[in-house]
């Protein structure tokens, strides 16, 4: 709605306009960036123009009122900015790009309601190209597809803003210098490259899941949703969405008011997000209906879904969870999966069986220095009524745990042994 300039704005309108800019930017960022990259081949230009369009919207909308079609407004503002820059460059290449931008973004603006699926998919695959270092893939995906700025990326990964912008800069340089094409990979590479995109998105989620602030988890969910929308038949993408929904459903109960970690068995299950759990179930069922054998994300989603579906900690279907871990250990063998399987066996068969399984896992290489191994041992020893041995294991876990909230949690457990 556009306001009549003579009428006073309703109170609170400026905040509403700023929210509208944020919403439109979040939903349109990836598609505007992606089409600018496709038509100009210039990642820096695309990034600057979208940023500029959002800043213009922040300056104009609170004064002029919301445009009738906010998405088209933002797209046009970014395109006009790109054309200005290209005209000023005045080179042959720039002129060709200018024609392409005009034609392409005009088409895009005409159907602003309709997503330009292919461009956004190209963007995700290119940001997650295996020739880029992993931390650059993460930063580039958050910046170019998610619209996060360097300050937000720096904050989320506990790095300085200059490190974050260096990562982005180097990634964009490599794309240009090494000839990384803006495209969806060839059919015979699609499965492995899709796995690469999913791995980056899961990494983003996990980075956010470990902290009380939920920005990265929300962003990862949004990007996985986008991927599912663009590749509806990709069962592992849908399975990852289900997994993230199950995990996100418990988010609010994972930390107490003091920011301390609450273990799953003590979480207030009444506050788990039922809507997210229901959607997770539905997405998981749809992923399974592909008829393909379950991949690693479907198995992890099945495990998270069993936790989410248990009415109480005692009701947890540990037998079913162990079965999933057995399959996961085949699909994606790793020491961490083996450790989690051992823990699940301990809950299914009792702490003594759990300790025996942990011994087997500890004998294999790969978990040296990993705090969850002594933490799991401590937990089973505590449940078995062996507080002295548990204390030794808790102290080892506290020494190894990298995150402050994990150390605090283990320390509290250690202290509770004495009472």
């Amino acid at each position, binding site marked *: 709605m556009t306001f009549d300039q003579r009428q006073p704005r309703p109170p609170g309108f400026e905040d509403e306009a700023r929210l509208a800019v944020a919403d439109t930017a979040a939903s349109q960022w990836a598609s505007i960036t992606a089409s600018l990259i496709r038509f100009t081949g210039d990642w820096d230009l695309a990034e600057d123009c979208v940023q500029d369009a959002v800043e213009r919207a922040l300056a104009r909308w609170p004064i002029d009122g919301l445009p009738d079609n906010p998405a088209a407004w933002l797209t046009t503002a970014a395109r006009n900015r790109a054309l200005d820059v290209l005209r000023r460059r005045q080179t042959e290449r720039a002129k060709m790009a200018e024609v392409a931008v005009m034609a392409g973004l005009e088409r895009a603006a005409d159907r602003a309601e309709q997503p330009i699926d292919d461009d956004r998919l190209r963007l995700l695959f290119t940001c997650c190209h295996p020739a880029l270092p992993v931390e650059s893939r993460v930063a580039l995906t958050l910046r170019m597809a998610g619209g996060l700025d360097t300050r937000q990326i720096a904050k989320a990964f506990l790095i300085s803003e200059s490190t974050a912008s260096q990562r982005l800069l180097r990634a964009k340089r490599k794309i240009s210098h*090494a*000839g990384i094409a803006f*495209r969806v990979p*060839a059919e015979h590479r699609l499965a492995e490259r899709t796995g690469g995109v999913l791995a980056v998105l899961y990494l983003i989620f996990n980075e956010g899941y470990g902290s009380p602030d939920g920005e990265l988890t929300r962003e990862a969910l949004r990007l996985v949703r986008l991927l599912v929308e663009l590749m509806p038949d990709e069962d592992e993408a849908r399975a990852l969405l289900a997994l993230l929904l199950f995990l996100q459903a418990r988010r609010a109960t994972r930390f107490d008011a003091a920011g301390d970690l609450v273990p799953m068995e003590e979480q207030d299950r009444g506050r788990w997000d039922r809507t997210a759990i229901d959607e997770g179930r539905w997405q998981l069922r749809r992923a399974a209906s592909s008829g393909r054998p379950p991949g690693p994300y479907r198995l992890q989603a099945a495990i998270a879904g069993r936790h989410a579906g248990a009415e109480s900690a005692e009701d947890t279907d540990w037998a079913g969870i162990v079965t999933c871990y057995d399959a996961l250990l085949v699909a994606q063998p790793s020491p961490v999966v083996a450790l989690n399987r051992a823990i699940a066996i301990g809950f299914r068969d009792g702490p003594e069986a759990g300790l025996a399984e942990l011994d087997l896992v500890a004998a294999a290489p790969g978990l040296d220095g990993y705090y969850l191994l002594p933490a799991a041992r401590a937990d089973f020893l505590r449940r078995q009524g062996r507080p002295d041995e548990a204390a030794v294991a808790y102290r080892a876990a506290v020494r190894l745990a990298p995150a402050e909230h994990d150390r605090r949690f283990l320390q509290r457990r250690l202290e509770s042994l004495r009472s």
Partner: protein
Amino acid sequence: MRYLMFVANDPDGEQLPENTTPDWVADVDARGKRLIGDRLRPAADATTVRVRKGELLVTDGPFIESKDWIAGFDVLECDDLDEAIEIASRHPMARAGRLELRPFWPFDQE
């Protein structure tokens, strides 16, 4: 895009029963994707050249001592990195050793 592909040995690589490099060369040449390439004599036959303070220094051996050494090279002409990766992945040394793709950096480009 032009890429220099270094073909390097790797002690951890797979042992191949026979060297099928000529088949790879024939295939890539037939598609016009290879400008030049060859096998190289081992590091023991290398000579390193430097001029320091006007004085020519010629020494025996490669300038980087390493357990994997460059055994050959190819110059590839490809549309983009993905195509170069595809071509490299079919080289027998992708399994027996490792390949490094370095884009050309023409002097008229930034």
